[in-house]
């Protein structure tokens, strides 16, 4: 790790100013993604601006028809939250299945979403539940947020302050864990709200996406059979030493059907 200047920000505005004033500064939230890259010398920021001191960025609340999770809320708190468990149990399951206890007690929802790791869980939840990303200056629909591999709609100096999850009638999340890393080889979140169905997928592609043919078919007939014959195109999906794109495409279908089956029980 190379030397850097450390700033403990006290509010969102001063964090943004510190970021703008630095040569090559970086925001640090839980540090679970950023610190390993510093240790491996893959990144060498001049400044680290820590959001850990900003109390207003922590907490979970119901606001209207949404569950609002502030950016610095750790995965363990989301996983254990009575509010989340009651309103969107699938989201608590998702958060509780991230990494290991150490990671869940440092890693934050803001950091996870800002990072857009193709194998991270939250992005699948954002797509599958139709969440909205709230930043210091605007709101961004989840559908427009993830642009590609580690690429989001955020401006370089823009901070996520919270994420709004509309409360669905029903939702279910299933993750196929990578045998080595424990990240999602594929993760699928299926939700139903009124007559609308969303199928959000993470792990399979360069960033999280929805499977609209599944959604359309399920809106007509909410059963595993309705999507059994719809193939997911493997083209453009991820391949690594353990799992091919073809396999991932297949697993998207399997997990989606299992989510639907679970919601029908």
């Amino acid at each position, binding site marked *: *790790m*190379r030397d850097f200047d450390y700033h403990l920000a006290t509010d969102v505005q001063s964090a943004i100013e510190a970021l703008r004033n630095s040569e090559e500064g970086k925001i640090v939230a839980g540090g679970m993604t950023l610190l390993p890259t510093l240790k*491996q*010398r893959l990144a060498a920021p001049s400044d680290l601006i820590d959001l850990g001191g900003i109390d207003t960025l922590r907490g979970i609340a119901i606001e209207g028809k949404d569950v609002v999770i502030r950016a610095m809320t750790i995965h363990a708190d989301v996983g254990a939250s009575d509010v989340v468990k009651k309103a969107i149990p699938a989201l608590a399951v998702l958060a509780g299945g991230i990494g290991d206890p150490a990671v869940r007690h440092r890693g934050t929802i803001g950091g996870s979403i800002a990072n857009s790791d193709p194998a991270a869980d939250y992005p699948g939840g954002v797509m599958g539940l139709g969440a909205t990303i709230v930043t210091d200056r605007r709101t961004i629909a989840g559908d427009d947020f993830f642009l590609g591999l580690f690429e989001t709609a955020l401006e370089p100096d823009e901070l996520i302050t919270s994420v709004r999850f509309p409360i669905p009638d029903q939702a279910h999340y299933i993750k*196929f864990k990578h*045998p*080595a*890393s424990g*990240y999602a080889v594929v993760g699928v979140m299926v939700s139903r709200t009124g007559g609308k169905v969303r199928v959000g997928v993470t792990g399979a592609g360069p960033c999280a996406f929805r499977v609209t043919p599944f959604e359309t078919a399920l809106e007509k007939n909410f059963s595993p059979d309705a999507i059994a014959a719809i193939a997911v195109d493997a083209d453009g999906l991820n391949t*690594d*030493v*353990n*799992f*091919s794109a073809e*396999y991932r495409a*297949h*697993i998207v279908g*399997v997990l989606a059907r299992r989510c639907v089956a679970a919601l029908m029980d």
Partner: protein
Amino acid sequence: MGQFGIGQPVRRKEDVRLLTGQGQYTDDINIEGQAWAAFVRSSHANAKILGVDTSAALELPGVVAIFSGKDLEAAGVGVLINEAAYKNRDGSSMHKPPRQVMPTAQTRFVGEVLAIVIAESAELAREAAEAVEFDFESQPAIASTARALDADAPKVWPEFGTNQVVHWEYGDESSVEAKLKAAHTRVKVDLVNNRVAPSPMEPRCVVATYKAADNMLTVYSPTQGGRRLQTMLAKNLLKMPMDKVRIISHDTGGGFGVRSKMYPETVAVAFAAKQLGRPVKWRGDRVETFMSDYHGRDQINHAEMGLDAEGRIVALKLETLLNVGAYLSENGVRLPMEGGGRIIPGVYHVPDFYFSVRPLFTNTVCTDTYRGAGRPEANYITERLMDAAADACKLSREEIRRRNFVTQEQMPYATHLGFVLDSGDFAGTMDMALKAAHWDTFAERRKEAEARGKLRGIGLAVFIEGAGSRPVEGMRVRFEENGDVSVIAGTYSHGQGHATVYSQLVNEFLGVDYDRVKLINGDTANSPAMSNGSFGSRSSMVGGGGINRASKLIIAKGKKIAGHLLQADPEAVAFEAGVFKAGAGTMTIGEVAQASRDPKKLPDGVTPGLDEEVTYENDVENFPNGAHVVEVEVDPETGVLQIVGYVAVDDCGTVLNPFIVHGQVYGGVAQGVGQALTEDVLYDDDGQLLTASYMDYGMPRAKNMAHVEALFNVVPAKTNELGVKGAGEAGATGAPPAIVSALCDALTPYGIRHIDMPLTPEKIWRAIQAARTGKAA
């Protein structure tokens, strides 16, 4: 057998220290004034080294020195040795290229050490290492075991014109071939023994310090015993007197065979400390562990078996390709022969046997010993053949084995490669495992699983090992002034729990309080002159046997002293539970030890002191064996395999401490599960390592395991006085064939008879897909 004697499940006395952070690993050692080392490593799998420019790196503040291969060569540093001497059938010798500590002209694998950079901090050293510029001329590389013999494969050592180290053969190929042809049934298997990264929890670390005034070099490092390394470092590499090189390992965080070797980094750090007259420390990281620790396994095997009409084996032919990496490591090339060859063809009587081994160079890091060291590979081959034979002969898997076991009546039984099995009840051990696993009621569980959409399978493997190789070891028992008794061992406990077991033995033989026995090991300055260390499941026999022999000498001498002091004939003195008795007079062993220090209290001709050192020697090793039965469930839609039941029955002879042996079995099974299910070191075609972190390399996790029911079928070894057989490697040996057998059983509905390890979900899914659509996977 008292509360702490032989056979008691005594809790490990080292655990409180190790689990409360009081262990002393090499990284806990810091020496006043130390500098830090980092290595420049090759990013090329095969390249000419045209030059090196260290000027930019040397200019960085805090950089102390940089040494490359040329500097070591100029200073007269020797090469890393290999003692193997195999011959081709025509009598010509194997290829034995020298291995420089750091190559000067050609680099041959990614991660190879090219230069050592010394700086005031670890960070600075790393920074400077990145600034060292090597000028390479990249050349095509070969990493694949399967393709290394292709005519157009790049040659790791062009001067040999081939990547083949040697073609070693045993037996008469034409006779075996004729018998296979004439056999009623002939089966073949083609197997991959996948390459794995041994992965000790503690990465390598070296601290070296040199005192010029007395020309004394001290090296701290995780090892499996320092004497061999001391010899190599002193004699072959740094050319120093033996007694001027000291190797110390206080605690070592996992050995598995991979910590018993002399690595280039150790030599380079020691050289730098000596050259600079300053302590130098290097702490490797996990990526370096993946790139430069020796790997395990990596064989491709073709095997054929002929059987008669009753399913009895008539002949066996086995052809092995072994990937040794870019150089010859200390033992890698020997693993199929001295490693697995000792016990091949397993627990079965095979009248005629042909065995061919071709070790191959590739542009990868060397392979060498890893838990089991050749025996897991060998048993995997035989057990896959036995399953294939069961299919072909239409016999059950247990019946084909039963018909071919070497029986107790046949023992002592000479194996093909000249070893003699003294004991073992293979049929009884298998039956115990089948019974404990409820083999006969498996159909019910399969049916129940089917109802849940799962394919359930049960698998069996019976295996044998050879343990306690090089059975020579120094052991000393010393009586301390304060009443403690120290065992000064040539063996080295790097996790096995010797402090506990040796204390039990001293308690058993000499009646000394268990708590008063201390283990001293891991320092060449005080270890017995003959000190081999711990590897190959040897310490129970050589360490335990050594304590037994030393105890006998102590008792004999004690009787003389006690007799003298109690005014009795030494012949009339009895010894029991730590007390010498003559008539009404008694002396405890502690009292005798105390008295023995005073020459005035000794009879004529008896030297002071009660301490004894012996060099334990045995002509032969021992043959642990066992049977594993595994149950698995497969999700046919995803190919995910889950182990749901596990029984391991071991014959490791007399059990000194069942609690510790169970620990060895669980750990070994976990590593076997890793090889079978998740672990696979992968290089791409250019020789780049694709699995260099735990993000990509699948270590087995708790959820990959099931509860292991570990049982014993004790058949004491006849060839050592304690009746012990090694227990350290059995788990890793039994697990892979049992798991693959279980998977294939689960996939019976699809007619799938083999899938190569690791059994990843995608491989299983593809095999099922191919079977469904009638195409090959």
